[in-house]
């Protein structure tokens, strides 16, 4: 047992990481589904989308051969509509609300139709938006993830020049660095960022990190407003003995490596334990398996009833033959020569509902041991608490406190994961729109 890379052939990697939600093969296939759409009024799908995409309208536009209009409808509400069509947990959003579910029929494949229109727009480089006359105002945004890009695009349309400061080498944030490679490819993420920037008026300065080479003070001085879209990034610690041993890695870093290196460069254990049952845990477990791990076991301290991931996501893990152990919490990592050899876990039972409303896991005292050589921690992410505190930003456990996107600092706004603690890409896009609206009110009307 050991943690090694290059476990598979090139062909195996390609097969394992091919697009899990393939596009429609042709126009006719899209039309069959588009024509099924009932064109609901005050549509449940639209109301279930955090960015309120007018789903019936964009689908109707596919049926009338108005793909340009369809893409415009989507991007007007969600400038990352292309990426969201690949990464949104639509089963609990638009598609989950589709009225066909109530007729015990398959819902309209909204995401797939959204992908159809948006990918065509990106491929053909349709410029669907124009900038209003330049206002002479400038806004700085920290973070080129979904919230930052969404905010930037709205502001640019309104004639404001935007500079985004991004600590990584590429834009897209978690879309680029934090999502399973079989959902979006690095090339797609790059294309999507380029497409968003093609409106003009948005400059991204890469490898610029808050607290290192930029400061809020400085930005406040040089810009009419500042928008913080710094996300969350720190993996929650397990706080158990042996956590610092070689072979214990957090899911975010693991996924980041997969997205940044070639598949054959990323090392993975032979027997891997994944802690957690959120979307990131699933992405880590399935990708560990797809990189060649012979056995992947997921541990979750509650039951299937309380799991944060959707059934669709769980199904991906189960189809990848990941083992699931419910009601189990990590207790200790055991190793030899500083390298992981075993994970000791404690059996849990459900107690009274806790602050989250879910039944709290309660330790039973009974333990069991798994022979593993790698432990991936995916027990949630924590906000940049010290970073925001040192910048005098009001926060709650690191999550920024805002009032209509405005922080406690003058002209400094915030949104996305750094405010909500980490939600879907689509939530961040909406936060970016809300932030832009607040900024526009602030700089144009004050």
């Amino acid at each position, binding site marked *: 047992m050991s943690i090694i890379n290059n476990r598979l052939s090139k062909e195996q990697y390609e097969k394992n990481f091919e697009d899990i939600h393939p596009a429609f093969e042709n126009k006719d296939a899209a039309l069959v589904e588009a024509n099924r759409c009932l064109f*609901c009024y*005050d549509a449940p799908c639209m109301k279930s989308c955090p960015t309120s995409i007018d789903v019936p309208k964009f689908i109707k536009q596919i*049926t009338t051969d108005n793909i340009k209009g369809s893409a415009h409808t989507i991007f007007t509400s969600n400038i990352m509509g292309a990426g969201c069509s690949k990464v949104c947990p639509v089963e609990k959003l638009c598609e989950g609300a589709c009225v066909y579910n109530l007729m015990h029929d398959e819902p309209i494949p909204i995401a797939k139709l959204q992908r159809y229109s948006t990918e065509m727009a990106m491929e053909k480089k349709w410029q669907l938006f124009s900038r209003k006359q330049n206002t002479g105002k400038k806004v700085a945004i920290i973070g080129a993830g979904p919230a930052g890009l969404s905010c930037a695009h709205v502001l640019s349309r309104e004639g404001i020049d935007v500079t985004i400061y991004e600590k990584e080498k590429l834009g897209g944030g978690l879309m680029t660095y934090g999502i399973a490679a079989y959902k979006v490819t690095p090339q797609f993420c790059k294309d999507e960022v380029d497409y968003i920037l093609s409106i003009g008026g948005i400059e991204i300065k890469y490898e610029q990190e808050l607290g290192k080479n930029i400061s809020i003070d400085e930005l406040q001085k040089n810009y009419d407003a500042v928008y913080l879209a710094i996300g969350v990034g720190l993996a929650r610690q397990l706080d158990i003995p042996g956590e610092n041993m070689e072979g214990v890695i957090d899911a975010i870093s693991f996924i980041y490596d997969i997205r940044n290196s070639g598949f054959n460069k990323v090392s993975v254990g032979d027997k891997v334990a994944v802690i957690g049952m959120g979307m990131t845990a699933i992405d880590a477990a399935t990708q560990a398996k797809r990189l060649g791990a012979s056995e992947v076991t997921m541990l979750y301290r509650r039951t299937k009833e309380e799991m944060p991931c959707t059934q669709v996501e769980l199904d991906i893990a189960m189809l990848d033959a990941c083992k699931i152990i419910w009601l189990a919490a990590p207790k200790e990592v055991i190793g030899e020569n500083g390298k992981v050899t075993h994970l000791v876990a404690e059996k849990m039972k459900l107690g009274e509902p806790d602050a989250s409303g879910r039944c709290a896991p309660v330790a039973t005292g009974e333990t069991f041991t798994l022979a593993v050589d790698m432990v991936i921690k995916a027990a949630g992410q924590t906000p940049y608490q010290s970073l925001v505190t040192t910048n005098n930003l009001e926060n709650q456990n690191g999550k920024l406190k805002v009032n209509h996107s405005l922080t406690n600092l003058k002209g400094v706004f915030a949104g996305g994961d750094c405010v909500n603690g980490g939600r879907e890409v689509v939530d961040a896009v909406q936060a970016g729109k809300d932030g832009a609206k607040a900024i526009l009110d602030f700089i144009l009307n004050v």
Partner: protein
Amino acid sequence: MADIRSNFLGIKSPNPFWLASAPPTDKKINVLRAFEAGWGGVVWKTLGSQVKNVSSRYSAVNYGGHKIMGFNNIELISDRPLEINLKEIVECLKLFPDRAMIVSLMADNDKNSWHELIKKVEDTGAHGLELNFGCPHGMTERGMGASVGQDPEIAKMVVEWVMEKATIPVITKLTPNVHSVIPTGEAVVEAGTNALSLINTIQSVTGVDLDTLVPNPYVAGKSVFGGYCGPAVKPIALKFLTTLAQNEATKKIPISGIGGVSTWKDAVEFMLLGASNVQVCTAAMKHGFRIVEDMIEGMNNWMDEKGFKTLNDFIGKSVDNIVHWEDLDINYHHIAKINQDKCIHCGLCYIACEDTSHQAIDLAQGKPYNTYSIKDEECVGCNLCQLVCPVDSCITMEEHRVAPEYINWVEYQKRGLPLNDH
């Protein structure tokens, strides 16, 4: 099992489903395939003087992802030599003696031409003749087809010529490209036609190509008005049919119903409104001759369920159920009801009523599902909500009579009863 054998003017066929005069009946090979598939009869594609066809010949109107809601053709009468057609008719008759063989005719506009053509066709042993007074394109410019059917005097004259000569039953096929089929219908009945058939195709332009800007069907950068048929024209055909079935002169002779018949249900509807049999073309051109299998079985099962033993038991049964507006019962009122257990909250009833009708549906906001219910006092009973609802039997129309007795508009006015209570 019900008996669906048909007897039209003494012309017998095992079922009332004939193929209309059109491309599917232009050649022996097609007709034999049709008979093998089970069709009761055919009306052989129109014979007349030699013509030349162009390409393209067809175009269509698609709707909501479904192909050929309406179909359009610019084809002329048979472009094959008359002698070959006559020879093939004889061969088909010999191979399938139990099927109806009608031959459609469109001779040049003189008595001798008609008489010569009739003689040649009767020599084949065909069972009947159908006069094509309806073709709306190509032949009209030569004073034939619809230009005969549109002028009662000319139609009457031609039928008189035909009846002088014909010894087998004569069906006159009418054009719908008129404000009413009654004047021509009455004229040809007076001239002695043995039966009527309708409708022929309706003049149309099915669309314009948005790249080339040329309407379709496309012929070297140009197009021409064509004849429209298929499911889209069925309601128009049923209306014309009913007017014939209700007219004192025309209802005395049998009518063969044509126009968008695609299923056994369509056929039953035509027959309930007075057709003795039906003729089919577009549906066969879309799906092939095999569709007749379900037409036969479906009609049979329906007749068994309704207790009809022969076709005559139900032919014309609905004719009297279409009346003048003035005869409708004004005291009849019904109100829509939404079954909340079946409702899928699509809101289509609401937006249709709110935007375009009587604001009679209440919307209670929900996330993501709104609740919709009928405001009884605002509902005029128009059916719109029920028509747009995608769920079967979710919206029903519940009877709420204003008063128990029947009262029509004339009587209503006489009594000075209140108007515009909505």
